[in-house]
């Protein structure tokens, strides 16, 4: 696989579910210097703002979302002492309990991996044009913000 192909696999917005093991190995296999891998996995929960939620739909801005995720990966690699970063977000209909978003950060040491991983998911939520619509007993609710 070429470097370009590999980089493209490290930042993705996709409809289908993903294998956490495969994605961790994608980062692990980038360097034998990696000694710690931190992950964040966001999943679909059935409760939000005191409402029951039966399903979530994610919409994203094709092109801009990928661009922002690439920027986050590039800045994480530049600003933290880490070796590799993978960012993956799903779109479309997602059932309760399913995977939504995955961040995987490989570093020589765990402290740097944890710090970069937290920064990546926080930044993703701030600057990436992705919108969440929750299916509730009252109808569909577009969610403005979530912690």
């Amino acid at each position, binding site marked *: 696989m070429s470097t370009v192909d590999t980089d493209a696999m490290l930042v993705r917005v996709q409809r289908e579910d993903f294998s956490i093991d495969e994605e961790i190995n994608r980062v692990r296999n980038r360097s034998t210097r990696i000694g710690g891998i931190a992950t964040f996995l966001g999943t679909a929960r059935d409760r939000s*703002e005191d409402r029951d939620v039966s399903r979530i739909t*994610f*919409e994203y*801005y094709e*092109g*801009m979302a990928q*661009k922002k995720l690439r920027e986050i990966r590039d800045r994480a690699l530049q600003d933290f002492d880490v070796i590799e970063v993978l960012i993956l977000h799903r779109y479309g209909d997602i059932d309760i309990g399913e995977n939504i978003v995955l961040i995987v950060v490989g570093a020589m040491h765990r402290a740097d991996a944890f710090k970069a991983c937290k920064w990546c998911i926080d930044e*993703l*939520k*701030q*600057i*990436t*044009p*992705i*919108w*969440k*619509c929750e299916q509730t007993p*009252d*109808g*569909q*609710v*577009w*969610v*403005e*913000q*979530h*912690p």
Partner: protein
Amino acid sequence: MTVTVKLFGMLRAQLAADSDLKVQLDQGCRVEDLIAAIQLMNPDVGDLLLKRKILVSVNHEMAHGDTELTSSDEIALLPPFSGGSDTPGGMPSDVYR
């Protein structure tokens, strides 16, 4: 000139549009002129644009009021992202449809 504005999330329902909005503007118009045109179409959305609760992107970058527009630009109105931008007191948190 006619510019095409992409809409996302709750904005499609608010502007009663499918995915794109066609807006007629004079040549050399800026983002602030687009916002004024949208305010005539829907004052509520226009106010949120003026308060920057809804943002405008041009060619995948955030735009400012003085950003000049051409008919070939890719323009989008971006409601608050689901991750939250911590903008207090802005758009109603929920829009039912």
